[in-house]
């Protein structure tokens, strides 16, 4: 092996270096979950209006068949296993508590719809491409679950020159994007090119953290024999540093541009999409294949066999955990997504939804279980904040009941990466203070109390 000198870029101020624990699954290939007995497909798995069911109880459905239509702002839902619609009813939901859900019992009566390549896929016009992305039910797979077609429709007057593909995967523990980039660099590149052409970007950059530099060769090979249509392409290696994969930080690391607070990346001519989303877009445009499964990392000290799993959407977390050897007795917390920005789930009888890129089973005491101490003004949260906000001040003002006076500390700019809370030696829930202050300020500005 010849040592290679790679230039490593990073964002400006702040950030933290939590232990990544990626060694648990960094070399685990993506394994398919066996057909689950049933899947629960909530009508809300995206930001936008709920999908509207177009099937009824007892219908037989094929894998890939549309079973609920997307509204004006949402995306449709597709059957992720072949089977029969068992019922449509309210079921537990990972983020919404409960949600109307289509339950499919798996049967072998039907199979998967055939998804054949459209020979003209490279020459489609923008409207058709967007329609295919929307019809495939694609949302941002990095966790936000914002409908991808909406992100690709630029407002009038906004131009984009750079398309950034987010392969940073800066959350500790998660390796799903890493393994996908190892397995499918071509599809990811093609999907990114489709989206770059759509928004008129002339430059395509892939940002990865340095612990994933083994994917570079695959992307370079793919780029060598893929028609790039004059779009320049490069893989950029970023420092392993949280939150490198946050849109703003990645844009700064890759382009040197700073997205102004409360603006979208397109304000500086950039669009960012996750690598898994790019692969889904490729499948949707080239094969008209909808989003019916996703790759996730099932990991943490609480799981018997940490794995990267490809599972049909709607598969129950208990089936996925069982496939990974089950949960250890000492598991105390179940985190959907990464441990920094992910969400604690109360139970395993919840469905896998589109935005869930990992399931981290943690052991031991969780944050704040023993209360928290006073702010000792150590300033560590100020050093950790990538935006230069003042979580210490916000927390003290909120504690004193002076929530509406926190605006000068940048409360409204916070995108809740949690770095401040990670470093706080007094275990203060700084992020939650920030959320309290943020919602109060928004409510107040709605009421025009604060201009």
């Amino acid at each position, binding site marked *: 092996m010849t040592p290679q000198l790679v230039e490593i870029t990073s964002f*400006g*101020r702040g950030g933290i270096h*939590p232990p990544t624990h990626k060694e648990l699954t960094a070399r685990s290939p993506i394994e398919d979950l066996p057909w689950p007995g049933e899947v629960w497909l909530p009508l809300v798995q995206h930001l936008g209006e709920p999908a509207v069911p177009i099937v009824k109880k007892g219908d037989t459905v094929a894998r890939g068949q549309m079973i609920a239509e997307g509204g004006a702002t949402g995306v449709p839902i597709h059957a992720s296993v072949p089977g029969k619609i068992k019922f449509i009813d309210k079921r537990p939901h990972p983020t919404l508590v409960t949600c109307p859900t289509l339950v499919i019992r798996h049967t072998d009566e039907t199979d998967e719809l055939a998804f054949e390549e459209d020979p003209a896929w490279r020459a489609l016009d923008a409207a058709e491409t967007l329609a295919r992305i929307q019809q495939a039910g694609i949302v941002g797979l990095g966790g936000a679950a914002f409908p991808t077609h909406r992100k690709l429709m630029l407002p009038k007057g906004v131009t984009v*020159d750079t398309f950034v593909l987010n392969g940073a995967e800066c959350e*500790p523990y998660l390796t799903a994007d890493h393994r996908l980039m190892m397995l499918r660099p071509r599809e990811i590149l093609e999907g990114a090119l489709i989206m770059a052409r759509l928004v008129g970007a002339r430059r395509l950059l892939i940002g990865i953290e340095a612990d994933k530099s083994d994917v570079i060769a695959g992307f370079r090979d793919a780029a060598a024999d893929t028609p790039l249509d004059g779009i320049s392409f490069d893989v950029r290696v970023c420092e392993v540093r949280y939150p490198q994969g946050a849109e703003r930080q990645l844009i700064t690391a890759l*382009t*040197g*541009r*700073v*997205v*102004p*607070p409360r603006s979208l990346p397109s304000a*500086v*001519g950039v669009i960012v999409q996750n690598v898994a989303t790019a692969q889904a877009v490729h499948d949707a445009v080239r094969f008209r294949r909808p989003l019916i499964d996703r790759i996730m990392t099932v990991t943490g000290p609480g799981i018997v066999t940490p794995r990267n799993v490809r599972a049909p959407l709607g598969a129950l977390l*208990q089936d996925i955990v069982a496939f990974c050897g089950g*949960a250890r007795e000492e*598991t*105390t*917390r*179940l*985190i959907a997504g990464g*441990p*920094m*920005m*992910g969400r*604690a*789930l*109360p*139970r*395993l*009888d919840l469905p896998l939804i589109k935005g869930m890129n990992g399931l*981290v089973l*943690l052991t031991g005491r*969780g*944050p704040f*279980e023993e209360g928290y*101490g*006073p702010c*000792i*003004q*150590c*300033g560590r949260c*100020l050093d950790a*904040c*990538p*935006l*230069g*906000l*003042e979580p*210490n001040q916000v927390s003290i003002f909120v504690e004193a009941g002076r929530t509406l006076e926190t605006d000068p500390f*940048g409360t409204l*700019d916070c995108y809740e990466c*949690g770095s401040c*809370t*990670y*470093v*706080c*030696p*007094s275990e203060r829930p700084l*992020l939650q203070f920030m959320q309290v202050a943020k919602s109060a300020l928004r409510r107040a500005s709605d009421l025009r109390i604060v201009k």
Partner: protein
Amino acid sequence: MSAAETPTAAAPHPYVISPGPHVRVEESTAQIMWWVNGALAPAAIWGVIVFGPNALAVVLAAIAGALAAEWAVARALERRVTLHDGSAVCTGLLLAMTLPPAVPWWTAALGSIFAIVFGKAIFGGLGYNLFNPALIGRAFMLATFPVAMTAGWIAPQPWFAVPVDAITTATPLAVLREQGLPQALQLAASPGGPYAGLALGLRPGSIGEVSVLLIALGAGALLARRIITLTIPLSIFSGVALTTAFSGALTLHLLSGGLWLGAFFMATDYVTSPVTRNGKIVFGLIIGALTGIIRLYGGYPEGICYAILLANTLVPALNTWFRPRRTMLAGTPS
């Protein structure tokens, strides 16, 4: 279907719902405080060795007084008793280290009780105090027991040496003030020369401040663990150097008195120092300059205690004047 035979889906393990982030650094406030106490220990132990049994009694009395006051305040105000977090021990230990070795032990206990009650508790407890509690305790003692606090200096008389009666003397800075540099340096005379004597601590002075070397060792540990940074200490040294550069005794000023103890262990106290780097620089320069000015022109031979207390009053203002730089520049095409 019997009640016991519920579907697997209905009987999941009850997991804890807690807000994110779900991982955090290991280092807690209590650990930081105990690291500070541990870093102070070498210099404190050396002070006890150099100055004899009364110094030990002073150190123990100050710590006991601080712990007792902390406990009593927590009980009286029905707050959580947090003796284990090390902050009261830290206040007591720091106060003792600033005291002349010959002060009566009970005055040290009174000083640390005052430090905890009026330096910390009345402001709202840990995190809310404006002034460094240990220095509040020292200022209280200087006002209350002026003779003991200004005449309590003794020549080093290590336990391992032949026991003699305590020789009352003056500190190098006091001698510098009254008699001049050569006489001051004589006080720190040692086989390696006067400056080696200052580094080792074989000179009259407060219990914990005499050995610059051991204070530096403790400070090095805190720097290595990134509990403190060099910003404040270096700014203080710069301020002292700037104000005393033309006094002819620059090195003595930099190596003597409580400067090192104050710069590394008191001015760096999180609660009573600014949070941003620029704030820290200004804070340190002010302390350094005030220390130099008090020593050269003020009423006391030593100035670091009041310099830090005065600068403490500026911390809220410094935190407002020197805010973190926000990441908000408009984007520019690269």
